[in-house]
């Protein structure tokens, strides 16, 4: 997401970086580029206007002109303003003091409410250990109830549904009572998609709100939305008083300027980002990281958080001990590889590392390579996994056959593993390894 905007801003600002000091003409040129980039990213043009005005004002101020590195200052200003515009700190849901916490989902048709409902249910169950129920109140779109039944169950939530005969207001109220009776921690109410200008359906949404008194009303917004996002957000905000926003389809290449617009118009935080079709591709939205990402500083914090979720702390300590004692064997290697893969597709992970964005845009990571490595290791005996140096001639041939690969592949894997062990040895001894020498050796 945002790749091209990031590139554009970087290109503009690298020009600024090239000068010793900033002139007003420099700033004007940079602002024009930023304006165009933001418009192409679908940020609403009025939001763009106020954004560039704010950046210009600060850039023209004394804290830039005459400073040693004005380019860096402009990057910082754009970053600060972008972060401020997107809402500063990450914001979490507020839970009701007495359960159930009731969450009402709203949005246009096709924005991804039903999927987001299931993802949020799964997220709250996993992250907060909540018992979650979801209520199927989309009685209009054909088969919407069936869809929620299926994805809700997959998410481990209980699905409250009454078919499509009753009114959404009745179903919502019934679901609230039932969630209370069942002692659920959270009830998420899925509603049908509606246009913000459809008075009848907007009135219905307001009635649902009145009937269930939700603790949070979340607007679901498609990251690909254009200029109209401001009107949609404004209208929903006026009808049902939003508490937060979920941005969906952020896994595409949309630059997601709508997210900025929606924040600017409603003043409500973007709480979650939906980044794929799988139920676990859903995370908290971090405005400051997103701003850094736009500027090409990478999303290291998100990566770290993902890693800490996937890795068991106990296991990590055990692994560290092995590193130090150099007992790290192929079994550990296999386990580590599995944990990394649990964090999601490698392509996604790499895109979060600073400096990787541009280089890896076109690169394809062959996930099947991991399957091959796994097959090779699993074809070894426990003893061979602990002592790979045993693997010679006939053992090598047996492993190659067993894993459906060839002798060269087995050889290459063992060589790589030995290199890795060497690296660990150096690191464990406290010295900084000569990475380039190691890379050369690895090739």
């Amino acid at each position, binding site marked *: 997401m945002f790749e091209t905007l990031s590139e554009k801003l970087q290109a503009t600002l690298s020009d600024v970086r090239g000068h010793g000091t900033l002139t007003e003409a420099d700033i004007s040129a940079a602002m024009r580029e930023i304006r165009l980039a933001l418009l192409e990213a679908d940020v609403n043009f009025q939001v763009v206007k106020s954004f560039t005005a704010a950046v210009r004002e600060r850039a023209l101020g004394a804290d830039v002109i005459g400073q040693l590195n004005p380019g860096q200052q402009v990057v910082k200003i754009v970053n600060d303003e972008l972060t401020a515009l997107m809402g500063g700190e990450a914001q979490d849901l507020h839970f009701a003091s007495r359960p159930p916490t009731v969450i009402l989902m709203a949005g246009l048709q*096709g924005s991804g409410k039903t999927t987001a409902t299931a993802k949020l249910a799964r997220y709250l169950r996993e992250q907060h250990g909540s018992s979650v129920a979801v209520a199927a109140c989309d009685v209009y779109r054909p088969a919407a109830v069936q869809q929620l039944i299926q994805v809700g169950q997959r998410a481990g939530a209980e699905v409250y549904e009454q078919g499509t005969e009753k009114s959404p207001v009745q179903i919502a109220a019934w679901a609230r009572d039932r969630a209370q009776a069942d002692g659920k921690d959270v009830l998420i109410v899925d509603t049908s998609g509606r246009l913000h200008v459809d008075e009848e359906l907007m009135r219905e949404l307001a009635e649902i709100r009145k009937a269930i008194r939700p603790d949070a009303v979340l607007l679901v917004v498609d990251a690909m939305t254009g200029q109209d996002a401001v009107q949609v957000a404004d209208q929903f905000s006026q009808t049902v008083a939003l508490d937060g926003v979920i941005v969906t389809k952020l896994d595409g290449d949309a630059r997601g300027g709508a997210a900025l617009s929606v924040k600017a118009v409603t003043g409500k935080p973007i709480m979650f980002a939906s980044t794929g079709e799988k139920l676990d591709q859903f995370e908290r939205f971090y405005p400051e990281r997103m701003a850094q990402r736009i500027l090409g500083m990478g999303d290291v914090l998100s990566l770290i958080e993902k890693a800490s979720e996937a890795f068991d702390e106990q296991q990590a300590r055990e692994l560290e001990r092995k590193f130090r004692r150099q007992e790290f064997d192929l079994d550990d290697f296999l386990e580590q590889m599995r944990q990394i893969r649990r964090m999601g597709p490698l392509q996604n992970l790499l895109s979060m590392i600073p400096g990787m964005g541009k280089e890896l845009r076109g690169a394809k990571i062959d996930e099947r390579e991991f399957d091959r490595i796994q097959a090779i290791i699993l074809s070894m005996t426990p003893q061979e996994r602990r002592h790979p140096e045993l693997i010679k001639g006939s053992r090598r041939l047996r492993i190659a056959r067993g894993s459906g690969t060839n002798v060269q592949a087995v050889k290459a894997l063992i060589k790589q593993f030995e290199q890795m062990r060497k690296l660990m040895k150096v690191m464990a001894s406290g010295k900084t390894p000569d990475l380039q020498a190691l890379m050369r050796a690895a090739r």
Partner: protein
Amino acid sequence: MARDWADLVIVDAARSMLAPEPAAAAEATRRRRGMFTRLRENLRKTRQALGAEIQATLSGELDAESWERLEEALIYADVGARTTAQVVAELEREAAAGGLVGAEALSARLVELLAAIARTGDDRIDLRAKPTVILMAGVNGTGKTTTAGKLAHHLSREFGLRVVLAAADTFRAAAVEQLEVWAQRSGAQFVRGPDGTDPGSVAYDGVSAALDSGADVLIIDTAGRLHTQEDLMGELAKVRRVVAKQIPDAPHETLLTVDATTGQNGLRQAQIFAQAIEVSGLVLTKLDGTAKGGIALAIASDLGIPVKLIGIGERLDDLRPFDAEDFARALVQ
């Protein structure tokens, strides 16, 4: 002249007898007007009416700021920076040359310029092949299934065509059931596979069913997918190949649904889908909101893909043939 279904689709002579004849022409015109009024009403439901903005801009003295405001108005309609710059530059050039005087002449010319961009390629749907295979594709949530269902309804009602609907969206939960409801409503024959089947095999069964029953049209609904998901785009290309193997010229029509609220990413969508499956036309959906669907102009301008149908509401009748001039006029008036 607004277009009707009879203007959009090409059917063989026997079928065209079923199409509205002069007797029904008055009724058709009335319906058409109703549609146009509704479209315009819907497009007008915006607080900062684009039209007022443009009128105000063009009726004053024309300076750099007027052109900039006109640009902003078009950008606000999601027309995109490049197409906007192109249109405004041309209008500015003609105004400077002295050919256009007054707000009325200027806005009329603006409509012409926008309509000329929207009018591109072959914008009709040829249904003379038997069966004609129509493949539906698009990003998640853009309205593929709904469009497939409504299209089936129109083709059978307006032209008496026998339609088969094939549910090749085997991925999204309950998508098959959703299309089945549409099949019942429109009286179309329905083809499905077990959950999680390969979409190619459903398409194959769809073609076989259409051939066996001598149906006129087969509409294949596919799962929504982001254009960035290469494996899923490959899957879609495979569906196309499967169909082409059974009927050499098929699919005869490949329609991409684009949500009118989509911003500039719509261009990328159209570009990548077109590379994968040779898109022959767009369906611009959800025009009944406040979004103006200007992205369709950018797509027409950059890629030469015409809009063939528009969706202006949730009712069965709210799927309509696209008319470039109506669209352009509704955009700026």
